[in-house]
C-alpha cells in the first residue's frame, strides 16, 4: 500500500513537473509576433543608450 502511494505520488510529481511549464506558458501568452502590436515609441535603455524601441529595428 505504502509502495503504491509512493508510486502514485512520484507519478504525480512527474506529472506536475511536466504540466507546470505548460501552465505557465498558458498564463503568459507569448509576445505578439505582429510588429504592429509592438509599442515602437516605448523608451528602452540598452548599453547606456536611451532609445525608442523603433531605433532597434
Amino acid at each position, binding site marked *: 500500500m505504502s509502495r503504491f502511494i509512493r508510486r502514485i505520488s512520484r507519478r504525480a510529481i512527474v506529472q506536475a513537473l511536466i504540466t507546470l511549464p505548460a501552465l505557465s506558458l498558458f498564463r503568459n501568452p507569448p509576445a505578439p509576433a505582429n510588429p504592429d502590436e509592438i509599442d515602437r515609441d516605448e523608451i528602452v535603455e540598452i548599453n547606456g*543608450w536611451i532609445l525608442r524601441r523603433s*531605433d*532597434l529595428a
Partner: protein
Amino acid sequence: MIFDSYEGYKQAGFKPKVCILGSGPAGTTIARKLGAAGIPVVVLEAGSREFSDESQDFYRGKTVGDFYFDLDITRLRFMGGSSNHWAGWCRVLDRQDFEPKAWAPDTGWPISRADIEPYLKEVHDILELPDFRPDVPVSDDIRWVQLIKSPAVRFGEKFADELDRSKNIAVVLNTYATELIGDGKRVTGAKVWSNGQDAGTFSADYFVTCTGGLENSRLLLWSNERSNGGVVPNAAALGRYWMEHPTFEGGNAILANYSEFEVDASNEAFFSPTLAAMERLQIMNFGIRLIESPYPNVKKLIADLACTAPNMAEWMSSQLDQRLRCAAQLYVAWEQAPLASNQIELSKTDVDHAGVPRIELHWKKSPLERRTLIEGLKLFGTTLAQKNLGRVRIDDWISNGADYPTNEETAGHHHMGGTRMGTDVLKSVVDANCKVHGMANLYVGGSSVFCTSGQCNPTTTITALACRLGEHLGKVIAV
C-alpha cells in the same frame, strides 16, 4: 577709503557703526548698501590688493570623506575674495528651491524667492547682467533654463575706486579677524591680527561676517569655543549642513539640431527638472549642461550606437555626412541633500600662523544624490528620445554603479551651508534676516546661510541676499 594696513586705519580715527569681515561679493555689497545709506562701515579684509601665497596659506585645511579640492585652492584670500577667479555663471535660485521637499529632510527656507526678488534689479547692475529669460518647458519633466555667463565681475577691481572715494566706507586690508568675542547676547569686539601679530580688539555696534562659505563656520566655531558659547549661543547646527554642487560628466548626446535649444554665447544650454518630475521620482534638483563636442566625437558616438542599434546608427551617419547631426557632452551638477553630517569642524592638530585651528571638512555625497544623477540623465534622455530631439548615452561608470571619478570637475567651488537660515535653533544658525539666533548685533552674509543649494551657481543669490541684509541692517540702525 582703502587702507593698506590696520595701523594706517587706526590713525585715521574713523568711527564705524558696522564692522564687516571680508570684502568678497557679500561683504562689498553690504558695505556699499550701508555706505549709500550714510552709515559708517568698516570692512576688515584679511588679504591685500593682490594674491599672495602667504595669505592663501591661512586657507589650508583638510577634507575627510569624498575627494574634494584643496581648501586653499577652492577660494581666494584677498580683496574681492573668490570673485577674483569666479567663472561668472549667474542665475538666482528657483522659486521651488526655497520650498520644503517632503522626500528630502531639512529642506525649505524661512523666506521665499519673493523676498529677494525686489533686489534683483540691483543685482543685475552689480553683476552686469541682462534680464533672465523665463524657463521653457521641453517636456512635462524637463525645462530649458537660462544661466547667464556674466563678465565675472571682480568685486575688488570694479569697486576699488568707489570704495576709496567713499567717506562712509573704510576698507582695511591685511587685517585678519581671528575671533569674535561675545557674551551670549552681543558681540563685544573682534580680535585682529595684522602685520604678523596680534593687533588688539576692534569694536563696533554691529558685526557681519562675510568671510566665505567655509570660513564663516570656521570663524564662528572658533569664536564660540573661545567665548564659551558666547558668540553662537545655539550652536547645534553650526558648521553643519554644508553643501556643494557635485559636477561630473554624465554622458553624451547625439542631437538632431543643436539650434533646437537656445544656446548662450559659449554655445551651451542648460536643462533642469520640473518640480513635478522631482516629486514623482523623489530626487533633488539638477542642471544638465550641454556642451557641443567636436566633430570626431559624433563619429565615435555613432560607432558605439551601431553596436546597439545598427540601422539607427547608419541613418544617423548619413545625416552626419550632411552635417545634420552633432554631438554634445552632458555635464550634470546637482543639488545635495542637506545633511547634518556634512560639516565643517575645527582641526584638533593643525593651526594657521595666527593660531586659529584650520578647517576639517567632512563631506560625502549621499545615495539620494546618486539617484538624482541617474534619474536626471534618464529623464533628459527620455525627453530627447520622445520628442525626437536626439539620443543620450549615459556614461558607463554611472550605469555600472562605479565610484565617482576623481579626475573630473568634481564640484563647482560653491561653498554653501554651515550657518544656515531657519526658525528651529537646533537646525539653523541665523534667522530670516541673517541674524545669529539669540545675538542682538551679529549677522552673517554669504552662501553659508543657504538652507538648500538648488542646482545653480550661488553668487547671484548671495548678492541678492547681501542687498537685502544691507537694507535690513540700514533700517535697524536708523531706528
